[in-house]
C-alpha cells in the first residue's frame, strides 16, 4: 500500500516537472521574432531602406546628375574605371556615385545599381553599374526611368562631354526612330550589411 503510493507520487512529480519544462519551452517559442525585433530581416527596416533608395533616385533625377553618370561610359565596353560588371568598391566616381556613397554605404547599407535597357528586338537587358555583392534575401529595390537621346553626349573620364550617343559606342542600342535613343530603367538594390 505504502510502496504503491510512493510510486504514484514520483510519477506525478516527474509529470509535473515535464509539464513545467514544456510550458517554459513553449513560452519561449511563442515570443518569436516580431516585426519590431531588431534584425537584418526587419520589415520596418526594409521599408525604410526602400524609401531611402527611392528618395535618392527621385532627388538626384531632379538634380539631373543621374543621366551624366549613365553616360560615364568608356567606349571600350565598361564604365570609366570599372570592371566589366561595374564598380565593386562603391558608387561610380561621379556626382551621383558620391551621393550613393554618402547616403547608403556610409550608413552600412550595401547597394547594387543595375541599368536595364531595351534591345532592338524588344528584349529587356541588364547591365550592372555597381556590384557590391549578391543582395541578401531582405533587400529592397527602387527603380526610375530615364530617356536617352541621340544627341546626348558620352562623358570622358574627366567628366567632359565626348561624342554623341549616335556617333559613339554604348552598351544600349539605338531603338528609336528620330531623336529617341533608348529608355533606361535604373534600379538600386539596397540591403543591410
Amino acid at each position, binding site marked *: 500500500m505504502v510502496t504503491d503510493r510512493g510510486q*504514484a507520487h514520483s510519477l506525478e512529480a516527474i509529470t509535473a516537472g515535464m509539464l513545467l519544462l514544456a510550458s517554459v519551452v513553449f513560452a519561449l517559442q511563442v515570443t*518569436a521574432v516580431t516585426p519590431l525585433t531588431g534584425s537584418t530581416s526587419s520589415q520596418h527596416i526594409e521599408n525604410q531602406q526602400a524609401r531611402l533608395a527611392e528618395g535618392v533616385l527621385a532627388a538626384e533625377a531632379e538634380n539631373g546628375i543621374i543621366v551624366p553618370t549613365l553616360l560615364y561610359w568608356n567606349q571600350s565596353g565598361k564604365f570609366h574605371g570599372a570592371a566589366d560588371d561595374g564598380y565593386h568598391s562603391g558608387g561610380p566616381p561621379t556626382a551621383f556615385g558620391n551621393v550613393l556613397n554618402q547616403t547608403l554605404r556610409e550608413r552600412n547599407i550595401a547597394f547594387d545599381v543595375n541599368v536595364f535597357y531595351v534591345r532592338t528586338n524588344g528584349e529587356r537587358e541588364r547591365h550592372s553599374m555597381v556590384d557590391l555583392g549578391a543582395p541578401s534575401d531582405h533587400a529592397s529595390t527602387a527603380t526610375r*526611368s530615364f530617356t536617352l537621346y541621340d544627341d546626348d553626349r558620352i562623358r570622358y573620364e574627366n567628366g567632359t562631354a565626348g561624342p554623341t550617343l549616335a556617333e559613339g559606342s554604348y552598351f544600349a542600342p539605338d531603338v*528609336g526612330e528620330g531623336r529617341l535613343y533608348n529608355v533606361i530603367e535604373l534600379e538600386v538594390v539596397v540591403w543591410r550589411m
Partner: protein
Amino acid sequence: MADVDDRGQLLLVGALTFAVIMVALAVLLNAAIYTGNVATRDAGPGTGEAIEYENEAASMARSTIAAINDRETGSYPDRRLNFTGTVDTWSLNARTHASAALADASVEVLGDPTRGTAIRQTAERNMTDSNTDPNWTVANDTKVRSFRLNVSQDSLQMPPDDENLTDRLFGENTTPHYYQIRFDESDTTDQWTVFFAQNATDTVTEDVTILVQNDGTTIGDPCAVPAENDRVVVDVTDTQVGNQHCAALQTMFGGLDAPYTISYRNGTNATGTYSLVVDRRIDRLQTGADTTGGTEPAATRALYDADLRITYRTDGVYYRTEIRIAPGENDD
C-alpha cells in the same frame, strides 16, 4: 485508495486548464505578431510609379517638341509624324520596363499638335525686321511661348543724366527711343509694353533694365540685372531677367489675355538674338520675319503644343490622365 483516485482527476483537470491557457496565450501573441506584420507592410498602393511615369513622359514630349522645332525643316505633317513616332516608340520601350514591374503603361498623342510658327534671330543683329524696319509686327493675333532674348547691354538706350528713375525711363524727354516689345490684345484695346534700357537705375550699374507698362501705367518695379560680358538673357514667358524673377513680367502675363499681337518698336536701338514660338500657322501669320527662312529674322514652321493621354495600370492602381505639353508657355 479512494484518495489516490481523487488526486489523479484533479491533476488531469489542472493540466487541461493549463494547456488551454497556453494555447490562448499563443493565439494572442500570434495575433499581435500578425498585426505588427500587416502594419509594416507597404502602406500605399504604389501611386508614385504612376506619377513618375507621367513626369518622364511629359519631359520626353517637351524635349521632343523642342528638338523637332529646332532641327526639322519639313512640313507640318512631317513634324506631326516625327512627334507621334517618337512618342509611340518611347511608349513601347517604357512599357517593356513597366511590364517587369507588373504594370501596363502607355502614352499616346491625342489629335494633332497645334501648328505654330517659330521666329528666330540666331545671329547678332539689331531687332529690326527682315527689311530692317525698326517698327514691325512679330506675330498677329496669337499666343506666345518660349520667348527668350539675349540682348547686348551696350546696344540699349541710356536715359539722360540728372533725371529721376521714372523720368529716366519715360520722362518728358522722349529722346531715348527705348527698344520695346508691345503686346496688343486682339479682343480689347489693352496694351502691354516691355521697355529695354541700360543703366536706368541708381542701384545697379552696367545693367539691363526692364520696365513693364499697361496702357501707359508702370507696373511694379523695374527689373535691373547687371550684364555678364555685356549680355543679359531675358526670358519673357518664364518671367526671368538674367536668371532673376521679374515680378512685373509675371503681372503682365496675369493680365494679358490671348490672343494678342506682338510687335517690336525702335528695333534699331537694341542688338542681340531671340527666339519665340507662336500658336498661329505660318501661312496665316502676319510677320516682318522672313517666312522663306532666307534672311534673319526667320519664321519657320513649328509645333506649338500637343495633348497626351497617359495610362498607368497595376493591380492596385488605375491612373489615366490627359496633359497638354507647351514647353516655355507662361502658365505651363
